[in-house]
């Protein structure tokens, strides 16, 4: 029983779990639905092993980047083929788990899923249902402290996404090309950089951990820049979920022939 509703400790005896009258349950519910829907879509797509590449224009979806399975079409494999082609192994199995861990240990997503799924707490001043609470002091949650390592890896993967986006301007058949797909890929990469660089671990690493900014003017500038981005970390977190899903869906739709790419040049 929560201490909030249990008055044995001399607290005011109020049985209600909360006296809030606003719709406090809406944000956690919206987060739970949004995150669950995204994870469901991403899981289906990661294991689909199809419609991930548009050979005419060189579009590769970020869900299959880098495409390192022997099952990948050779043109999509910019970084070699080292993984066996089996149904249970996504073609980008060397990047996807780290991207998942980067977001799973992200300080923003932690807040979102602790509230939405674990109800700890569901909303401010609403009693949580758990009897015991040890926070992030024990396994497995103590592993949240490894966030910075996943940040380093996610940074490298974002560079690969950038490479993919630039590569797509050069059509596999030769010549420069520009279509709606290129713009979508590019916007997605810009948002991915914004999300990755606005990370709290990045903010600490570039300068937050030092106490004398005056002795480190360059790091202070970097910290100031990341701090500005960091205030929008939540917005970038959701914007990138949307942009990843839109990018992937667009490439799937073009690849499957449901729609044709809107071409501007070439």
């Amino acid at each position: 029983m929560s201490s909030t509703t249990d008055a044995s400790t001399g607290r005011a005896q109020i049985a209600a779990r909360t006296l809030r009258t606003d719709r406090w349950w809406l944000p956690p519910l919206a987060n739970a639905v949004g995150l669950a829907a995204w994870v469901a879509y991403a899981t289906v797509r990661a294991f689909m092993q199809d419609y991930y590449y548009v050979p005419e224009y060189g579009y590769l979806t970020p869900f299959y980047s880098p495409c390192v399975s022997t099952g990948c079409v050779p043109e999509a494999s910019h970084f070699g083929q080292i993984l066996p082609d089996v149904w249970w192994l996504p073609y980008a199995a060397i990047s996807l788990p780290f991207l998942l861990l980067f977001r799973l240990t992200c300080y923003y997503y932690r807040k979102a899923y602790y509230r939405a799924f674990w109800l700890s707490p569901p909303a401010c001043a609403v009693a949580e249902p758990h009897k015991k609470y040890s926070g992030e002091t024990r396994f497995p949650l103590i592993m949240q402290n490894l966030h910075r390592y996943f940040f380093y890896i996610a940074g490298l993967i974002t560079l690969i996404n950038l490479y993919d986006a630039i590569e797509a301007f050069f059509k596999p058949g030769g010549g420069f090309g520009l279509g709606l797909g290129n713009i979508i890929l590019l916007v997605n990469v810009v948002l991915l950089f914004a999300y990755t660089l606005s990370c709290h671990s990045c903010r600490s690493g570039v300068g937050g951990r030092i106490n004398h900014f005056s002795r480190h003017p360059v790091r202070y500038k970097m910290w100031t820049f990341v701090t500005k981005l960091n205030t929008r970390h939540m917005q970038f977190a959701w914007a990138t979920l949307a942009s990843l899903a839109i990018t992937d869906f667009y490439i799937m739709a073009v690849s499957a022939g449901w729609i044709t790419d809107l071409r501007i040049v070439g």
Partner: protein
Amino acid sequence: MAESTSHLHHFKVWRGDDEKGEIVDYPVEVNEGEVVLDIIHRLQATEANDLAVRWNCKAGKCGSCSAEINGRPSLMCMTRMNTFADDEPVTVTPLRTFPVIRDLVTDVSFNYTKAREIPSFEPPKDLAPGEYRMQQVDVERSQEFRKCIECFLCQNTCHVVRDHEENKENFAGPRYLMRIAELDMHPLDAADRQLDAQDEHGLGMCNITKCCTEVCPEHIKITDNALIPMKERVVDRKYDPLVWLGSKIFKRSGA
């Protein structure tokens, strides 16, 4: 002359002590421009002369009139009545994390105990008082935390102690973890605070769900600017082998 905009409002106020209590209904007059504390004072002056309430400045700067208004931890003096519809009942209860003394007054001594547990500023050994010199850019971060008025709304809202009385012993609460962060970022503080933050003051209990930030009447970004940076500093010391190795090789300290 403008038409008078006073109306009768349905107030529900928790009345009781540490043994028993209940929410009591009061119809009470509300005038334009008033805040919840004004209405509580009107109740004291009219129907409930013995209503206990702690207050002081009526300007959101003393941190005395913390309570829960329609379940939301807030300062009574900073909650305007025009944020409620005329027919919307307003429930006022004492803070639910601390022992109640009477009516809306709670015993907040938990916070004083926690404050005493944080070691004070420790100047470098080679500097005498009067010789401290600091750059503005180096103390700017800490200055945000100095805006704290110690209303204890964050301490009251944090689910770590609000929902788990047993955690009170080992958890300093957001206000005092922020105090540790303030001192740890201080350019002249010589004390080693990072390991203690985790091991003695319970920083690891914080799951960064940001309710402290949400309720802060001074709008201090407690989670983003104090707790998470402090967690990252703890990782530097306790959980990151690379930073540890770097500090051994390059003999970096304090930077």
